[in-house]
């Protein structure tokens, strides 16, 4: 008997406008547990707004959001985190005034207990792969851009999530660090961590993604494997540029 894969996150007819600007229009988005999904699209396509609605920063005008089968449409952000959702921001938001150790200590008290063993293993792997010392007393403000990005990913992993949403985790990184980030995220995903990434860097997407969703003008424009998306004529026109 083949088990149906569980749905990690699902939206039904999600809509959101800011004034006259449509940020999400009838978005039906579904990610299965254990999947590595990348989201691409031109600036203003609604990727970050969709992330903001998924984790509870923004409220949808209409539609529904489910996390691991639970309706979280009206659930506050911190309660969604307790359901196993982790998020890193487009602009790094580690606590710059605090040390690396303190940054990693803060999420500990809110960590989910049911996922502890596997979550701890993921955290230790990521810290090692990113070269971060969890006892480092250096202030986060003194870290390099790459280290700050990695520190924020590690902070989210401290909470032992089942699903991580990463908004441009490799933004501003050189190609070597981008691929290093992709490699770590791929390993974490191989342990069952559902991963959804907004990323502009196509090298990252080609390397890491199992499925790609293309957003355009607040709508899901296309969805498929990396090869399908790259070959998609209209996606090439609106986003990738014609060869």
């Amino acid at each position, binding site marked *: 008997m083949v088990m149906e894969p569980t749905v990690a996150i699902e939206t039904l007819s999600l809509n959101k406008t800011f004034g006259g600007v449509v940020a999400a229009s009838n978005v039906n988005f579904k990610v299965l547990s254990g999947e590595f999904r990348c989201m691409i699209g031109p600036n203003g396509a609604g990727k970050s707004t969709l992330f903001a609605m998924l*984790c509870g*920063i923004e409220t949808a005008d209409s539609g529904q959001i489910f996390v691991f089968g639970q309706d979280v449409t009206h659930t*506050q*952000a*911190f309660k969604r*985190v*307790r359901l196993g959702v*982790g*998020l890193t*921001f487009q602009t790094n*938001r*580690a*606590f*710059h*005034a*605090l040390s690396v150790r*303190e940054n990693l*200590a*803060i*999420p*500990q*008290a*809110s*960590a*989910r207990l049911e996922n502890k063993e596997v979550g701890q293993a993921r955290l230790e792997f990521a810290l090692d792969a990113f070269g971060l010392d969890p006892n480092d007393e250096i202030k986060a403000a003194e870290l390099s851009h790459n280290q700050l990005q990695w520190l924020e990913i590690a*902070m*989210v992993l*401290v*909470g032992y999530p089942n699903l991580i949403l990463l908004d441009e985790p490799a933004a501003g990184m050189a190609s070597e660090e981008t691929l290093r980030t992709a490699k770590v995220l791929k390993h974490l995903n191989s342990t069952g961590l559902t991963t959804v990434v907004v990323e502009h860097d196509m090298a990252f997407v080609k390397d890491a993604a199992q499925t790609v969703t293309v957003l355009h003008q607040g709508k899901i424009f296309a969805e498929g494997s990396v090869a399908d998306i790259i070959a998609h004529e209209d996606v090439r026109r609106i986003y990738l540029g014609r060869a």
Partner: protein
Amino acid sequence: MRTFVGLISGGADIGRTRLFWISFGVVVLLFLLYPTQASAFRVSNVSFYLLNIPLGLGMALLWGYCGVLSFGHVAYFGVAGYTYGVIAGNMSGNPFGPLAGVAGGLLASMFVAGVFGYFVFYARVQKWIIPILTLVLTLLLETFLGQTAGYQWRVGSVLLGGYNGMTGIPWFQVGGFVFEGYSFYYLCLLLVLACYFGLRMLVNSNFGQVIVAIREDELRTELLGYDIRARQWVVFVLSAALAGLSGLLYVQWGNYITPSQVGLLQAALPVIWTAVGGTTSLLAVAISAFALNWITFTLSSQGNQYAMVIIGGLLVATMVFFPRGIVVMVAERLGRLMTRRAAPPRQP
């Protein structure tokens, strides 16, 4: 025991070295010995400087550590003081009346702060509006209390007294032991030390780290799984209780309270103590609250009408020359100097 020492000597406040703790011990010893060398009048004055420190510490916790500025924390000072006056005054002659007054005063200040804070934090009022709302609350309280002159404004046998205030408030006593003069001084000193060490442990705990995280970035903290509104509310109520403690000690010290204690001028003082000392250190604010009360009291008692102008000038000078606070920046420079001296000389 190790946890206790770790919480006391953690890095969330200035002063972690052995030399610091020896100096701290010496200062406490000097305070303990002070009544043996000074007149009752001077001891009473120092009691006044000490009794304001919990109010300053509460402000440091709320503003410096949690990032929420209250411009009206004297409201809780006043609520506790008036409530103590009403309860202890009505239980006059009962040796446990003042104790009931203390419990009632603290609960009243925490209740008012709890209700006010609930609406402020759970409605997610923007941070820049909070100082205005808190100031409005204390000015409303001052206006209300100011119009309570007349016999009709009494609670039991205690008159609220309008702008003349409430007088004849009983000393603090437990059973037959009355705290006045020297014993009141030691009570203030003990409470200040208890508040300081308690708060130092709090800010070095995980709770303390989370409130600093809230100050740094509310959204990031919430997306690490914390209900930031609940934590801001807890800190607000705790800081109000500390303001209430100062209010209780104030009415026990002077046996009176007037509406001016919750007025605009008084409302500005804890903010000034905190800014001048340094918002991010409990010890700095404790030193600043003591020193600025001493300066204000000394200038005022010598007939200097410009005491508050001088304090205001000090605030402006601090903002310009010591933006992180005088005590904090002096402590940082001293720390750097000591580190440089302790470091081995460089090889040529």
